[in-house]
C-alpha cells in the first residue's frame, strides 16, 4: 500500500532501473524542489531534550551536511527523519518528505518512499551473508528481480571487495569493509534520498578519503544526500550546503564553501 503511494516518485515505467532513478538531475526545470523539509523539530529522550526546535531543508539533488560536536543531536536528527526513533519519547514539529508528512510514520514506511538511511556504526546484519545484506537493502524492490540484480552488479563493481566476500557472513568483514557494505546496502534501495550517519567512523584515513570519493561520486550522479559527519573538513568538501548543530539547536548554516571559511566553524570543527 505504501509502495503504491510512493510509486509516482520512482522511474517506474522508465525501462529497468530504479537505479537510473538515482541519476535524476535536479535542475531540469530550473527550480529546485524541496525533497525534505523539517520544521521546528523537537525531540525528547525522557526528560532530556535532544533537539530543540530545529528547521532545515534539503532540495532535490543537493548534498547537505550537518556538522557539530558530539552529542549535539546530529544522529538523533537523522533517526527522527528516517523514523527509527522507536524509543523517542516525544517528537513535535513537522517533517515533510517528498510532499508527505512523515514525522508520525514508521521507518519501513519511510524507507519504502525511497529514503535510505545508512546508520551510524554500520549496523550490518552480522549473521547474514554479504549478498543477503545487499539484497535486504533492496527489500522494498524485492519483486523487481532484474533491476535488483543489475544494481547488485553495480555495487559489486563499485566495491570489488564485497564481491570477493559475497558469501561470507558480514560479521567477518573488517570495519572498513562493513562500512562499504552498509553504504552498498543503502544504494541497493535505489534511494531518491540517502542519509549517511558518520560514514567515516572507525575507518583508517585512506578508507575515509575513499568513502568520501564515493559520496562525491554519488553526488555527481545527482543523488540527494544528507550527511552527518565528525570530519567536518571532509563533509564540507563534498557538500553543497551545511548546517551547524550545537546542543540541539541549529546555530548556523549556509553554503559549504562559505562555511568552511567561517571563523567559528574553522575554530570549532576544522581545528584551524
Amino acid at each position, binding site marked *: 500500500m505504501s509502495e503504491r503511494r510512493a510509486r509516482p516518485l520512482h522511474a517506474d515505467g522508465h525501462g529497468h532501473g530504479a537505479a537510473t532513478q538515482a541519476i535524476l538531475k535536479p535542475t531540469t526545470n530550473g527550480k529546485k524542489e524541496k525533497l525534505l523539509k523539517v520544521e521546528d523539530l523537537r525531540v525528547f*529522550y*525522557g*526528560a*532530556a531534550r535532544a533537539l530543540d526546535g530545529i528547521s532545515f531543508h534539503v532540495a532535490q539533488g543537493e548534498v547537505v551536511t550537518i556538522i557539530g560536536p558530539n552529542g549535539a543531536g546530529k*544522529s538523533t536528527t537523522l533517526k527522527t527523519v528516517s523514523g527509527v526513533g522507536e524509543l523517542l519519547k516525544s517528537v513535535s514539529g513537522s517533517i515533510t518528505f517528498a510532499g508527505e508528512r512523515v514525522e508520525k510514520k514508521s521507518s519501513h514506511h519511510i524507507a519504502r518512499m525511497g529514503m535510505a538511511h545508512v546508520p*551510524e*556504526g554500520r549496523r550490518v546484519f552480522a549473521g547474514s551473508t554479504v549478498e543477503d545484506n545487499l539484497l535486504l537493502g533492496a527489500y522494498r524492490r524485492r519483486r523487481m528481480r532484474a533491476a535488483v540484480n543489475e544494481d547488485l552488479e553495480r555495487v559489486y563493481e563499485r566495491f570489488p571487495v564485497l564481491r570477493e566476500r559475497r558469501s561470507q557472513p558480514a560479521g567477518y568483514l*573488517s570495519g572498513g569493509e562493513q562500512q562499504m557494505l552498509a553504504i552498498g546496502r543503502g544504494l541497493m534501495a535505489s534511494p531518491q534520498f540517502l542519509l549517511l550517519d558518520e560514514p567515516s567512523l*572507525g575507518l583508517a584515513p585512506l578508507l575515509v578519503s575513499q568513502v568520501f570519493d564515493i559520496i562525491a561520486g554519488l553526488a555527481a550522479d545527482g543523488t540527494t544526500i544528507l550527511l552527518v559527519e565528525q570530519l567536518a*573538513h571532509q563533509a564540507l568538501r563534498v557538500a553543497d550546503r551545511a548546517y551547524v548543530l550545537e546542543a540541539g539547536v541549529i546555530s548556523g548554516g549556509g553554503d559549504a564553501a562559505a562555511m568552511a571559511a567561517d571563523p567559528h566553524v574553522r575554530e570549532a570543527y576544522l581545528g584551524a
Partner: protein
Amino acid sequence: MARAETEPKDTGEVEEIRGAPGQGVLPIYRRHGELIRFVPALALILFILWFGQSQADSRKWLDIGTEAMYLAIAAAGVNILLGYTGLLSLGHAAFFVAGGYAGAILSPALGLPPWTGFLLAFLGSAALGAVLALMCCHLRGFYLTVVTFGFGALVPAIVVVAKKQLGGPAGRAVDHFVDTSKVPGAGHGPFSLQLGLYYLSAFFLLVTLFLCWNLVRSRWGRAYMAIRESEVAARVSGINAYRYKVSSFALSAGFVGVAGWLGAQRFVLVSSQVATPDQSFRYVIMVVVGGMGTLAGPILGAFGFSLGFGITWVQNTFRDYQGLLYGTLGLIAVATAPEGTVGNLRRYVRAYSLRRAKRGAAARSAPPPDVAPELRRPAVRERESSDAANGEVLHVTGLTKRFGGVAALSDVDLVVRRGTVHALIGPNGSGKTTFINVVSGLYKPTAGRMELDGSSLEGLGPAARSRRGLARTFQNLQVWRRMTVLENVMVGAHARDRVGLVQSLLRTPKSRRVERHMRDRAWGLLHFVGLAERGRDLAGTLAFADMRRLEIARALASDPELLLLDEPAAGMQVSEIHDLADLIRQVRDAGVTVLLIEHHMDLVMGLSDTVSVLDYGQKIAEGPPTEVRADSRVVAAYLGEEAT
C-alpha cells in the same frame, strides 16, 4: 557506544529525575534512619498475630493462612534468584517437593526428631539446587531457564524411577511429622494442630525475611544484584559470576525446600503433583505481581494469591481454571505493572517525594557522612615483591586475538611502567578495546603472554585478575543502574574483603565490621571523585559524565595496581574533560598506574607519559607524546593532516 548514549534503556526508574543533583529520591523508609524501615516488618507481624487469633476457629482459613506463609517463603526464595540475581527458573517447584522428601525421608533415617526436618529440607534442596546450578550456570540467560524447565518436567519420571523411596506418582506419606499442637500459641482448640502449623510457618517466614533482609544488605546480595545489572561489570569487579550464580541458585532452592517441608507437614504427604512447570510458573507470577527484587514483593504476592483464593467466590469460579487465572494475571502484570505492586508503590512514593522536593518542602536525604582523609583517595595495595618486575606493572608480549578470520590484535607488545599514565590510541576498530578486553580477561587471547607485576595472568578469569590488581572502566557504561551510587562503589571493593555467605545471612559481628569498613571506603572514594552528594541516589539517575566518574570510583575501590580506562572522555563536554584530566592525575599521584584509551588528543597529550599507537591491530608507534605526535606513520594513520 553511541546507542548507549542516546537511547537510555528504560530501566523503569522515574525518568524525570535524571541529571540534576539531589533529585534521585528514594522511598521514605530508605531515607529516614533505620527505625522506619521496620514498619513493614512490624505490620507483617501484627497481621500474622491478628490472623491467627481471629481465624483460630476456621479450619479453612487456617489452612489458607499456612499456605500463604509457606508460599511466601517459596516466593522469597524464587525472588533471590529472579529478583536479585536476574535468573529465571521454571523448575523451582521441584525443590518444593525435594524439601518435602528430604524432611520426610532423612529425619527418620538419621534418627533425628521431626522438627529438624526443616534444616534437612533446606540442605537437601540447596544441595540439589547446587548440583543443577553447577550444570547450567554457565549458560546465558534464557538457556538457563530452559534447563530448569526441563529439570522441573523431569520430576514425574524421577518419582516413578525411584518408586520405592518416593512412592511413585501417588506420593509418600509423612509418618514422622511435627506435633504442631505443641507450638506456642496453638492453644487447645479443635484446630490446635492447624493453628500450630500456621504459627510455625509464620515463624519460618519471619526467619526467611530476616535472612533475606541481611542478604540484600551484604556483600553477597550486592554481588547478586551486580550480576543482574551487568554481569560483565560484575566479573571485572572481582565477582566470580559463575560461583555466585550457583550460590544464589542453591540458596533460593533451599528456601523453597523449607516451604516444601512445611507443605508436607500440612498434607502429611509429599507428592510430585505440585512439581509441575505450572506450579513453578505460579511462584514466578507471585514474585512478579508482588514486585521482583524487593523484600516485600514476594510476600505480598503470595499472600494475595493464597488469601484471595480463600474467598469463596474466587474458589468456586477458578477451582478448575487456575491456569486461566494465573496466565491472565501474568499477562496483565507484564502489560501494566512491570515493576510489580511494590515497585509501583515505590514509584508513586518517589514521584510524591519529588513533587514535595520541587516545592522545597522536604529536605531530602542526609548529607554524606564524613570519612577519614586516608580513605578519601585511591590506595595502593601492598605488594609482596615490589621489585620483581623492575617497575613494570603490565608486560604484554605477542598478544594476538582473532575473531573469525579477522585479527583484531596481531602480535602486540606493550610495557606499562609503574606510576605512569600510559595512553593507547588509534583509529576506531584498531583493536584498542579488544586489547583492554583481553587484558582484563573478558576475551581469551589467540596467542601471547600477559604479566601483571611479574606474575603471569594466563588462565585467569576477569574476577581473578581483579583480585590481582587490575581494574577497568567501560566505554559503553556498565553502571549498575538499579543500585545506589554507594552500592556500586561498595561492590567495587568486593574482592578486598572476604565474608562468607552464612556470615552475611546472619549478619555476624565480623560481617558488620567489614560492611562498615566497605561503606566508609566507598564514601571516601565518592568524595574523591566528587559524587558524595549523590551517594544515596540510584546510579541510573546520574548524568552521563557522573556515571563515568562513578565507574572510576568503582574501579578504584578494588585498590588496583593498574587502572584501565576505556575512553573515559567519550561524550563529555570540554569542561568535564578538564575535570577528568585532574582526576586521572590525582589517581596517578596516589600511586595507581593508568592505561588510558582515548580519542581526545588534548587529554592524551597533556596527561600521558608514554603513548602507544595501534593501527589494524598492530602497534605502529610508541614513545613520549611529543614524539608520537610528530611520527609520520601516526599522522598518516590516525591524526590526519588537519586534525592536531
